[in-house]
């Protein structure tokens, strides 16, 4: 039986539909252009906003590091709970919600697909066990490769082909979706308590620089024709004056051709990489300099990494950064050096409105979104939970859509935002079409999933969000209402089924796990496997046979072949 | 003659091995119903390897076999492997961590010639089924 979403106001930027009254037809979980209307269920969504389901491109929602963050902070869990109902499981956690709850909360906001931001290959099984417990969404994992010993060795030897064969083998072994690079070289240096503070700092003992790692991996990524581009967390996150490192980093892939209709590099949570100043007293926004480069570039996009002015749990595979941050705050600190691969860290942080730094960080995220002209180049994230929890997305949407809301917040935060950021001078207000780009269409395109996600044309998965907003009567000054409506959908539809109605979960479903299988030359693959076998035995602490994650750990596995 | 010492409990390789073979076998009693003493302490009250001894705390007393520690010196400290014997004399947690004090228990050690070391099964029967020291069955 089909379904007709009748009389909604549709925002489908990928198909150039900008707020038209239009019916959406659904059959067998996908969107179709024809349907037997007599047998179809009709759902009246008159004068409500209809968008493709939201796509999360960067959220620390599952895996070992996230779980260490949960275990570290009972105080984050006590005050924010969901009791069990007849159909849903219980849960807890504000900045690090438990898995079931994560699925429910995303679904209530109309999100239907999500990428967990950092899978360390050795811990891949853990990430997938948690993803299995996140219902309501299709999901995948960005896979950490920027400090991997095999990768660094192949790239040092200039062997792009072998490196590509290794990356292909690894992504398939751990059922990863994309290549993620975090503080290239720096996280390996952290194995000795050191860091790479510029793109030319040599990685101790590996005779390679961050620049060479980034350049090599971009080439590898495009040679493998992976659906997503390299997803890069540059060196120097959170450091004073780091915008210069970011600018240098953005020049690295210069000239590399993308294998698909997308960017060659996504610089992630760019807010944390857009800082000027040489002391906390002179700390200032350099979002304008970054936005300027993005505006001129056809190859690079960013996601924002908004700061939402909350108490949160920071977590990243950038181990030295977390040590540095915990040194500033003197708060508890977790580190997890993972053999041959990476070194994540965790520490709580309070982005207080009273703090000049936090206030400016809040402004920087908004500046990036308001100064970058093309919304397809700026995707909405908080780097959950680093800049703030994902449940604040509706509030960010309200900030972007309402200058009045920004003015109100500016009056509440530290006055430093007036001098050391330009956000008070910006009057741009996002419209609903632009919101649809930065929360779903842009993400789907960046991930190379635009054939099935992020749009409402025939053939797309029937993942849909309906918000109780009448565009004809939308007043951006009513920002509280905007926030409330985006927090609770009128309907969330997953694979053609209504799973949320009026902000309540009405059906619990399992999503797919997306992973990549990239083709490489079988001869080279054979050589590389030999090399893996030899070195694995010597340097890993488990046997190679026990490393790969089998499909039984995945829900509804969906292989993306190249 | 008695000796006042500090008791610690924990895993031993023999206890682990025997436990996996079956707690109803003699091996388990041999591995866990023992008290490892420093040779100097043994001399003080004239205990020899293999003697039955009575170990008592405010909670209760238990009969185990004395063995000379291979992991000495640790004068003033005795060790009994984790198991039902030692736990019949350990106390409940009192510091809001959920953790019972399994190490650092003040105990009294005495000779107990002629006393029998019970098997795990018989010990549990005696303590929790047939009757505790007050003469009443718990169940």
């Amino acid at each position, binding site marked *: 039986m089909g379904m007709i979403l009748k009389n909604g106001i549709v925002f489908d930027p990928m198909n150039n539909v900008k707020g038209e009254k239009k019916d959406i037809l659904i059959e067998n979980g996908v969107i179709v252009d024809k349907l037997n209307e007599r047998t179809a269920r009709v759902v009246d969504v008159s004068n409500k906003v209809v968008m493709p389901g939201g796509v999360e491109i960067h959220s620390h929602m*599952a895996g070992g590091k996230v779980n260490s963050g*949960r*275990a*570290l902070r*009972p105080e984050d*869990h006590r005050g924010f709970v969901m*009791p*069990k109902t007849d159909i849903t499981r*219980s849960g*807890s956690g504000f900045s*690090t919600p*438990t898995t079931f709850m994560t699925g429910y909360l995303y679904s209530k906001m109309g999100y239907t697909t999500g990428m967990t931001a950092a899978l360390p290959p*050795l*811990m891949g*099984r853990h990430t997938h*066990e948690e993803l299995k*417990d996140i219902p309501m969404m299709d999901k995948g994992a960005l896979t950490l490769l920027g400090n991997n*010993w095999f990768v660094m060795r192949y790239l040092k030897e200039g062997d792009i082909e072998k490196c590509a064969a290794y990356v292909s083998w690894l992504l398939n072994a751990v059922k990863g979706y994309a290549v993620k690079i975090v503080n290239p070289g720096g996280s390996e240096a952290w*194995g000795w*308590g050191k860091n790479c503070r510029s793109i030319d700092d040599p990685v101790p003992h590996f005779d390679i620089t961050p620049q060479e790692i980034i350049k090599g991996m971009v080439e590898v990524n495009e040679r493998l024709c992976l659906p997503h581009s390299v997803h890069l967390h540059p060196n120097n996150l959170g450091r004073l004056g780091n915008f210069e490192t970011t600018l240098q980093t953005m020049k690295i892939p210069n000239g590399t051709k993308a294998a698909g209709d997308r960017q060659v590099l996504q610089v992630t949570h760019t807010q944390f990489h857009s800082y000027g100043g040489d002391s906390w007293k002179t700390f200032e926004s350099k979002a304008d300099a970054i936005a300027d480069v993005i505006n001129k570039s056809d190859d690079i996009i960013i996601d924002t990494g908004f700061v939402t002015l909350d108490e949160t749990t920071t977590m990243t595979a950038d181990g030295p950064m977390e040590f540095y941050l915990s040194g500033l705050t003197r708060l508890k600190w*977790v*580190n*997890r*050096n993972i*053999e041959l691969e990476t070194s994540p860290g965790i520490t709580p942080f309070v982005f207080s409105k009273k703090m000049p730094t936090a206030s400016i960080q809040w402004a920087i995220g908004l500046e990036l979104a308001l100064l970058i002209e093309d919304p397809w180049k700026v995707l909405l994230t908080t780097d959950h939970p680093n800049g703030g929890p994902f449940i604040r997305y509706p509030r960010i949407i309200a900030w972007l859509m309402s200058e009045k809301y920004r003015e109100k917040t500016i009056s509440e935060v530290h006055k430093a935002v007036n001098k050391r950021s330009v956000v008070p001078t910006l009057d741009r207000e996002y419209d609903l079409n632009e919101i649809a780009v930065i929360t779903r269409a842009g993400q789907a395109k960046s991930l190379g999933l635009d054939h099935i996600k992020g749009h409402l044309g025939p053939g797309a998965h029937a993942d849909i969000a309906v918000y109780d907003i009448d565009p004809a009567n939308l007043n951006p000054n009513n920002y509280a209402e905007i926030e409330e409506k985006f927090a609770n959908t009128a309907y969330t539809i997953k694979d053609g089924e209504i799973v949320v109605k009026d902000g309540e979960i009405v059906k619990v479903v399992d999503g797919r796990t997306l992973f990549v299988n990239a083709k490489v030359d079988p001869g080279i693959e054979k050589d590389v496997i030999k090399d893996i076998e030899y070195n694995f035995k010597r*340097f890993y*602490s*488990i046997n190679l*046979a026990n490393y790969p994650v089998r499909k039984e750990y995945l829900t509804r596995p969906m292989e993306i072949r190249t | 003659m008695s000796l006042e010492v*500090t008791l*610690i*409990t*924990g*895993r031993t*390789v023999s206890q682990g091995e025997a436990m*996996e*073979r079956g*707690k109803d076998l003699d091996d388990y009693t041999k591995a866990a119903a023992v008290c490892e003493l420093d040779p100097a302490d043994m001399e003080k009250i004239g205990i020899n390897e293999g003697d039955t001894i009575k170990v008592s705390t405010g909670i209760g007393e238990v009969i185990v076999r004395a063995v000379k520690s291979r992991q000495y010196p640790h004068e*003033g400290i005795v*060790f009994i492997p984790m*198991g*039902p014997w030692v*736990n019949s*004399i*350990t106390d409940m*947690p009192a*510091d*809001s*961590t*959920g*953790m*019972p004090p*399994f*190490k*650092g228990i003040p105990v009294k050690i005495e000779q107990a010639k002629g006393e029998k070391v019970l098997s795990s099964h018989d010990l*549990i029967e005696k*303590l929790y*089924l047939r009757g505790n020291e007050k003469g009443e069955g*718990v*169940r």
Partner: protein
Amino acid sequence: MKKAKGYGRMVTDVVCPFCGTLCDDLEVVVEDNKIKNVRHACRIGSSKFLAMNELKRPNRPMIRKDGSFEEVDMAAAIEECGRILSRSKRPLLYGWSSTGCEAHFVGIELAEELGGVIDSTSSVCHGPSVIAIQDVGYPSATLGDVKNRADLIIYWGANPMHAHPRHLSRYSVFPRGYFRERGQQDRELIVVDVRKTDTAKLANRFVQVRYGEDFELLSALRLVINGKELEADEVAGVSKEDILELADRMKTCQYGTLFFGMGLTQSYGTHRNIDAGISLVRDLNHHTKFSIVAMRGHYNVTGIGEVLTWQTGYPFAVDFSRGYPRYNPGETTANDVLQREEADAALIIASDPVAHFPKKAVEHLARIPMITIGPHMIPTAQLSEVFIPSSISGIEEASTAYRMDTVPLKLRKVIEPPEGIYSDVEILEMILENVRERRVRQMEREKKAGEGR
């Protein structure tokens, strides 16, 4: 799977389901569904595999009738479990450390359904470590990172030669690593303990700490490492000179790892000892690279902590009585629930609290209806109302477990379980279903009664 010389088949890359070291290089020779030989395992691990042939395992569920056990069929046993648990107002679901995560999933759902308290053996093991971590954090590393980098290994209050027999040879002291090509020769081993343990006998340096004064010694080391003058001539039985030397050694190594065990968690001070140990390691990171690793005991005690955390938000001692997860060690921990005589029923799985809990807790367990699920007739089963024998996870069932450093591994199935024996997962699923059916029936009855009025 290779063909073994002479007889049977050989299963390779087998993960050992005994301790938190989770060695994954075992080779097991199987013939006619019997384990003939085990290679690479330690004494305890071998014993676990080889005992399979000799063990007289109960093969039918049992229910206590008039004081003694009677064999029953599975349906009757499940029915009795459902009856006991559904009647209970505050059931305690305890154990979980010697079974796979797949069983944890069902167990947590059952605890949530019942509104009960679920706790693991962490409670009497590294529970204090968890509490300390929640206070100060946990700068840690995987065991392979230690193997490749560490030139200084410290075991403090841990005796791996007994509790984790292959720990030194696989990960810490003896193996060659990427930056430690000569293995043991490239490393120094320091052991801190109250006894000169079998591990201490292997050490380059043994530090004998006075019982109950670990906190003092750790604090003295922090003092020195942070550049302060140590005024005492001796702390915790260790001379000032030795403390200064120890501190210097820690500060000047290239990469150090502090492994700690029950000697800290179960001794006077409990979580405060761990707090001091973690803080020491954090301080050391201002001078060099240092990590700390808890020597987790049971093979999957880490796993139950991980699963509980991602499903409820808390690593142990979770109370569902309000419909959502709550956690408060000292209140929701197993021994406290028993000490206050709150629990009115218990389900024990993959552990043996009657052998390993203090007397008063066992007395309460003996008073309330108790269900035991596990492969062996253990002391806890001896005091139970219902005992359901189960297959052995990691030998007779494939399952998932987490190593002490949270590396997740897939345990293999080596042989078939005996006929008629179900897995922990299957048994728990049957109980959950029974409990749910009872709840539905109860709701229907209440509805009818309401209509009648």
